[in-house]
C-alpha cells in the first residue's frame, strides 16, 4: 500500500507540475493551453539528444529548461497574442492545432519510440524501512514540491501581484500601468519552464513518448480543474491526490479503469465544488 502511495506521489508530482503550468498561463493570459505537455516534450527530447551525444547531465538540463521557456514565449508572441481579442474558441483551437503539430513534429524528427533522460542517479534505490524507494522518485517529489513553493512565492512577489491583477480584471490592471503583454509573455515562459520540468522528471524516472504527452495533458487539466484553474495549492494537492487515486485504482482494480476514474474525479469536483475543492478552505485572502 505504502509502495503504491509512493508511486502515486511520484506520478502525482508530474500531474501537479503540469497542472501548475496550465494554471499559470490561464491566470495571466487567459488561455487554456492544450499544447503544454508537447512544449515540455520538445524541450525534453532536445535534452535527451544532448545527453545521448555525450554532454553531461546538468548542462543538458539547463538547455532543456531554456528551450522550454523560449519555445513557450515564442508561441505566445507569434501565435496567441493577436487572437486574444477573438475570444476563447480560436485560442482553444490554436493550442489544439499546435499540440497536434508539435507532437507530429517530434515523431517526424525523433520517431515514436519511448525515450528516457538518464540522470546520474538513475537506477539507484534506497531502502527506507522495508520500502523500496528509487532516487528518481525522491528527486521527482522534492522538485515537484519545490516547484510548487517557488510558483506560490512568485505570485506573492510584485510581479505576481500584477499578474493576479491582470487575471482579475485586464482593463483595470492596464489602466493602473500594468504591462499586460509583457506579463503574458512571462507567464508563458514560466509555464514552459514548469512543463519542461514536469516532462523531464517523468523522463528521468520512466519513459516518455509522443503518446505519453496526450495522457499527461489530460491529467494536468484534471489537476488544474481540482484547483478551479485559480488556486495553486489546490492544483498541486489535486495533482498529488490524482496520482495516488490513479495508482491505487491501477493496483487494486484494473489499469484500464485508471483513466475513467480520473475523468469521474473531474466531473465530481466540477459538480460539487465548481471553484476547485480547496475553495473556501482559505481562512484569509493573501
Amino acid at each position, binding site marked *: 500500500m505504502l509502495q503504491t502511495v509512493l508511486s502515486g506521489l511520484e506520478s502525482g508530482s508530474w500531474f501537479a507540475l503540469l497542472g501548475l503550468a496550465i494554471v499559470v498561463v490561464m491566470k495571466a493570459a487567459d488561455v487554456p493551453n492544450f499544447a503544454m505537455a508537447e512544449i515540455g516534450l520538445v524541450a525534453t527530447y532536445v535534452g535527451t539528444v544532448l545527453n545521448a551525444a555525450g554532454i553531461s547531465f546538468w548542462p543538458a538540463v539547463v538547455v532543456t529548461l531554456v528551450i522550454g521557456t523560449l519555445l513557450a514565449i515564442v508561441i505566445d508572441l507569434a501565435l496567441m497574442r493577436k487572437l486574444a481579442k477573438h475570444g476563447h474558441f480560436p485560442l482553444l483551437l490554436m493550442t489544439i*492545432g499546435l*499540440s*497536434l503539430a508539435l507532437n*507530429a513534429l517530434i515523431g517526424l524528427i525523433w520517431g515514436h519510440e519511448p525515450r528516457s533522460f538518464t540522470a546520474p542517479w538513475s537506477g539507484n534505490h534506497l531502502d527506507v524501512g522495508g520500502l523500496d524507494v528509487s532516487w528518481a522518485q525522491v528527486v521527482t517529489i522534492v522538485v515537484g514540491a519545490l516547484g510548487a513553493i517557488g510558483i506560490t512565492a512568485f505570485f506573492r512577489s510584485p510581479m505576481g501581484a500584477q499578474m493576479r491583477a491582470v487575471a482579475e480584471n485586464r482593463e483595470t490592471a492596464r489602466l493602473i500601468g500594468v504591462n499586460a503583454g509583457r506579463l503574458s509573455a512571462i507567464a508563458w515562459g514560466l509555464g514552459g519552464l514548469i512543463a519542461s520540468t514536469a516532462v523531464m522528471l517523468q523522463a528521468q524516472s520512466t519513459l516518455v513518448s509522443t503518446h505519453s504527452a496526450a495522457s499527461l495533458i489530460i491529467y494536468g487539466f484534471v489537476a488544474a480543474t481540482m484547483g478551479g484553474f485559480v488556486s495553486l495549492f489546490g492544483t498541486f494537492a489535486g495533482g498529488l491526490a490524482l496520482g495516488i487515486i490513479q495508482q491505487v485504482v491501477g493496483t487494486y482494480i484494473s489499469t484500464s479503469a485508471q483513466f*475513467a476514474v480520473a*475523468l469521474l474525479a*473531474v466531473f465530481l469536483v466540477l459538480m460539487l465544488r465548481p471553484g476547485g475543492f480547496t475553495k473556501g478552505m482559505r481562512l484569509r485572502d493573501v
Partner: protein
Amino acid sequence: MSEPGRATATTTHTEDPTMVTAGAEAVTEPSAHAVGRTKGLVAVVALLLLFAAPFVLNSYLLFVLNLTLVYAVATLGFNLLVGWSGQIGLAHAALFAIGAYGSAIAMEQGVPFLVTIPLVGLAAGGLAVLIGFPAIRLTGFFLAIATLALGMAIVELLKGARAVTGGGGGLNVEVFTLPGINGSASTYFVTLAVAAVAFFLVRRSLIGRFGRTLQAVRHLGQLSGSLGVSALRYRLIAFGLSGFIAAVAGSLYGQLQTFVFPAMFEMNLLVPMLVMVFVGGAGSHWGPLIGAAFAVVLIELFQDLGDLQAIAYGVVLMVAIAVLPGGLVSLFATFRDSRLVGRLLARRTASERSEVRA
C-alpha cells in the same frame, strides 16, 4: 404583416404572395421574395446534383461525399450547441458514438435501421441533457472540461462493456440497403435524405423564435430571466437537440464505415469536429457544410503523408485560425460587405425596384 427582415433571411419561408400589397412593403417585399426564390432554387438544384452523385462519381469519391454529409449533420448539431447557444460542450464525439453503436446494437436485436435513427436520437438527446446538467452551475471553459470528461468516460464505457459493444475490438454494423439499389449508393441516398431533412428543420427553427431566443440566452445568460426566458431550459434544450442530431449522424456514420470501434470516437474525432464548427463559422447556417467539406478534404488530401499528415493538419488549422479568426464564412461576409460588391448589389436592387414600380 410579417417583418421584412425575416422574409429576407428565409429561403423556404416565402410566405403567401398575397401579403405583398400596397404601401412601403410593396417596394421591399418583391426583391426579398426574389432573393428568397433564388436561394430556394439554388438549394433545389444543389440537392438534385447531390442526388445524381452516385451515378457520376467513382466509389471513392462517393465515400468522401457521403462522409462529408455525415460530418455536416454532426456539425449541424455541434454548431447549434457551440455557435448558437454559446456553450462549449465537448461530449459531441461521444454522442456521435452512441448513435453509431446504438443503431448497430439495435439492428442486431432486429430493429429496422430506419427506426433506429430516431431511437438513438432520442436516447442520445436524453443523455445529452444529463451531460448538460453541469451547465446549471458551470459556463465557458469549466463546462468544456466537465463535458469533455463525461464524453471521454462514455468512450471508456464503450471499451469496457465488452459483452454488448465488443470492447476495444469493435463491432460489425449490419448494412441497410434500400430495395433495388446497390450498397454504397443506398447508404448515400439515406444519408442525403437525412441530411436534407436535418438541415431544413434546423434552419427553420433557428431563423425563427427559437434561434433568436438561443442567441438572447447566449448574450444575456441568466439575465434573460428578466425577459421571462429560462436560460437554463434553453441551454438544456440546445444540449438535447445537439445530442439528438449527433446520434442521428452517428447512426449514418456506422452504416458508412460498416465497422465501429471506440478509438474512432476519441480526440481524433472531436478535434476535427471543433475544426468543422470553427472553419464553417460558429453560429452560421451553412457553415457546418462548408466546415465538414474543408475538414474531410484536408484529411483525405493529407492521408498518405504519414507523420507529415498531422503536422500539415495542425499547421493548416493554425494558419486558418490566425488568418480567419471568424472562420471561412467570415470570408464571405467580408466579401459581401466590401464596397465594390455593396455597390453592385445596391445597383441591382435599385433597378429591380424601378422594374416593380414600372
